[in-house]
């Protein structure tokens, strides 16, 4: 049998594939399609201290080879998630990565302290990169000092390793990654969505009620690959890569670029079996090439190094 096991801070993954936050709810919906225990991990929807209603509709729009969303972090709030959502997932043998969000550093600290105590939460993912809310989110993810301060504060209270989710909407992604690393982040997840806009051809008005939204799907993959490639060489903590992954080949590209594991977002909407198909594809690849899953991580930059040192 092919060994797809990947070891990351706090996470023993059966395989490196997991659904991305916000694209899988709290797992219930996709449990109708397959056994969630087959996933490497599950990154659940963002959680804030109080229930959040999110933005007005329409909240999604299709673009050429991608989609825009402006959900606005709608979630039932920390208490409801702890009481009603996480216990459902405890029936599955799969580590949970809880996505933590808020308006203020205190919000993050509150959610992190409590949710990291849930028995099946193995890691936190700090959502400092949501482009769709006015307060919090992106403001922490685009300023190195604020990012470091927030990471430190959360590290102090968290019972489990902390991954920081980087935003692509910055000029210096490597600087942000290093700031998170120096502040004690155990890993990075990247990328979140790119801020975009789509207009109605008849009226010229934005298609989303919110005007702007986060671009995801195949359209963003080259941007994500470049960022994972740059960041993974500049830090010594692991990177979980994402952005436009819909096939095993896409996942492989991210691992070549330096990602130790790969998350799948929008592709779940197109194909509810996307994660399963990708796991099988990757397994076949590893088996035919007769290599270890770890061998492929960072292959592209190792290849480039050999080229330049010649």
């Amino acid at each position, binding site marked *: 049998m092919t060994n797809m096991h990947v070891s990351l801070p706090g996470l023993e993954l059966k395989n490196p594939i997991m659904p991305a936050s916000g*694209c899988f709810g709290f797992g219930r*919906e996709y449990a109708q*399609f397959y056994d969630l225990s087959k996933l490497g991990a599950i990154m659940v929807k963002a959680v804030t201290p109080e229930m959040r209603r999110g933005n007005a509709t329409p909240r*999604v729009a299709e673009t050429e080879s991608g989609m825009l969303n402006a959900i606005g972090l709608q979630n039932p709030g920390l208490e409801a998630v702890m009481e009603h959502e996480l216990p459902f997932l405890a029936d599955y043998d799969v580590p949970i990565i809880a996505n933590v969000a808020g308006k203020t550093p205190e919000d993050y600290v509150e959610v992190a302290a409590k949710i990291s105590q849930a028995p099946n939460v193995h890691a936190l993912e700090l959502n400092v990169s949501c482009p769709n809310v006015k307060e919090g989110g992106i403001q922490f993810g685009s300023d190195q000092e604020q990012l470091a301060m927030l990471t430190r504060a959360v590290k102090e209270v968290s019972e489990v390793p902390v991954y920081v989710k980087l935003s692509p909407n910055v000029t210096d992604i490597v600087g942000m990654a290093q700031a998170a690393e120096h502040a004690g982040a155990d890993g990075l997840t990247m990328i979140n969505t790119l801020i975009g806009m789509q207009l109605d051809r008849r009226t010229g008005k934005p298609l989303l009620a919110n005007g702007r939204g986060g671009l995801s799907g195949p359209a963003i993959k080259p941007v994500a690959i470049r960022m994972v490639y740059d960041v993974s060489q500049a830090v010594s903590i692991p990177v979980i890569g994402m952005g436009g992954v819909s096939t095993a080949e896409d996942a492989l590209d991210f691992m070549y670029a330096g990602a130790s594991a790969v998350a799948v977002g929008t592709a*779940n909407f197109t194909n*509810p079996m996307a994660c399963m198909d990708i796991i099988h594809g990757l397994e076949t690849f590893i088996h035919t090439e007769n290599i270890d899953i770890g061998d492929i991580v960072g292959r592209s930059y190792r290849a480039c190094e050999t080229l330049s040192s010649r």
Partner: protein
Amino acid sequence: MMLSLEVTSNRFLTSDVVQMELTSEQDLGRGSVGKFIHIDVGRTLRRPISICEVDGHSLTIVYRIEGTGTAWLSERQSGEVLNALGPLGSGYPIMKSGKALLVGGGIGIPPLLQTAKELASNGVQVTTILGFRSEPFLVEEFATYSDVHVVTEDGSHGTKGFVTDVMDAFTYDTFYSCGPRAMLQAVKQRATSPGYLSLEERMGCGVGACLACVCDKADGTYAKVCTDGPVFESEEVVL
């Protein structure tokens, strides 16, 4: 849940409304009235389309060409196979007796056909008001199961005006409505009894995971159109 649907026919009912007949490997049978299927059209997002008629392994959808996805659907030939999820959502509860009023507007009309059929087979007395901008479709099909009244905005067919202009002429125990939001608002206001509304909202996943498709409920909470709806009790939702 995952459906392989073979196209058996695809024909234009008007200049931009197309009726597609499909066969499914799975028996979709009863219980699908008012539900929808989420069709892979080879793009990032699937397209939600209501089930118009369903009988065991065969189903019919009727759609209006709006953009790239529905244009792609209109080009499918017999024998081609579509990938769809469904039947999704919760549909119309079918009453057992009494009088029902069906009010459909434009491309909201198709899901009411199976509704009319099942109501009629229960012995319910069915009256249907069909509103169009100009070109009617499916009128004869509705006439098989109900007493039909056609309304057009331009007056080219039936009565000139809106569906609500003729609603007052009928008595009924329950109404069933699907159409543009403004029409649903007017119907709800005009109705003399409680009833059911079928809502439309932009969708991402279609299965309740992405929270794209929410609508406001009267109790201040949110509902998801894809899983809690698309059919709601008229008093349950705020339009």
